[in-house]
């Protein structure tokens, strides 16, 4: 919902983080329910992937800000032309 509603690229990233955390919480609940440690390992890997994604994504946002001095995602429409 946040991804669809906002236009600030940083806030969109934060909403993606929120979604990943929702999945993490569900995974930990499953691990408690089925008494299985491997889903907590999956949570660990999701955290790893999220961290890598945030590093690359923020680098892209910084680069975009240096180019166009804005973090409005609609400006990226210009990539079409």
């Amino acid at each position, binding site marked *: *919902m946040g991804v669809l509603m906002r*236009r600030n690229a940083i806030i969109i990233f*934060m909403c993606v983080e929120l979604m990943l955390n929702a999945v993490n919480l569900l995974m930990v609940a499953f691990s408690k329910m089925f008494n299985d440690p491997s889903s907590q390992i999956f949570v660990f890997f999701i955290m790893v992937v999220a961290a890598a994604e945030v590093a690359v994504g923020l680098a892209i946002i910084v680069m975009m800000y240096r180019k166009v001095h804005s973090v409005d995602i609609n400006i990226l429409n210009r990539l079409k032309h």
Partner: protein
Amino acid sequence: MDLFEAIFWFLTAMAIGSALGVILSRNPINSVLFLIATFFAISGHYILMNAQFLAIVNIIVYAGAIMVLFLFVIMLMNLNADVEPQKSRLVQFAGIISGGILFLLILAALRDMKAAGVIEKTATDIGLMKNLGKTLFQNYVFPFEISSVLFLSAMIGAMVIGKKETLVIDKN
């Protein structure tokens, strides 16, 4: 277990409220602070579910590292004053409708589910670091190594993306 339930509902309300704050607040700095509150609430849930290792990792990695990165980028861009132009009403409406449909779907799926008995509150120790480490290094060694390669490539990629731009600016 009344205290347990009280803590659970408090953490749930805190997580949902601050997640809505992330989405709805105008100022990006406020969004980051709400997001940190959400992460602490989720870490509290992990502790309630006996996943101490993940709770600590969540606090250290998310609230420590990633949020500092977000705050750093926001302060670097000096964005906190401007008001972003909102999306058109149609797209906002579509976002609310799609989120609501997803919520209804989850609700409808959960309505038919019977509670499979109360999960025993015995202190399982699968969330402790010893057992998780055994599972990680016995069954999941290969994904672990792959993730280290992923981290290395992400780090190099971020540095390359940041560096090429400075070269362009120097040329100008």
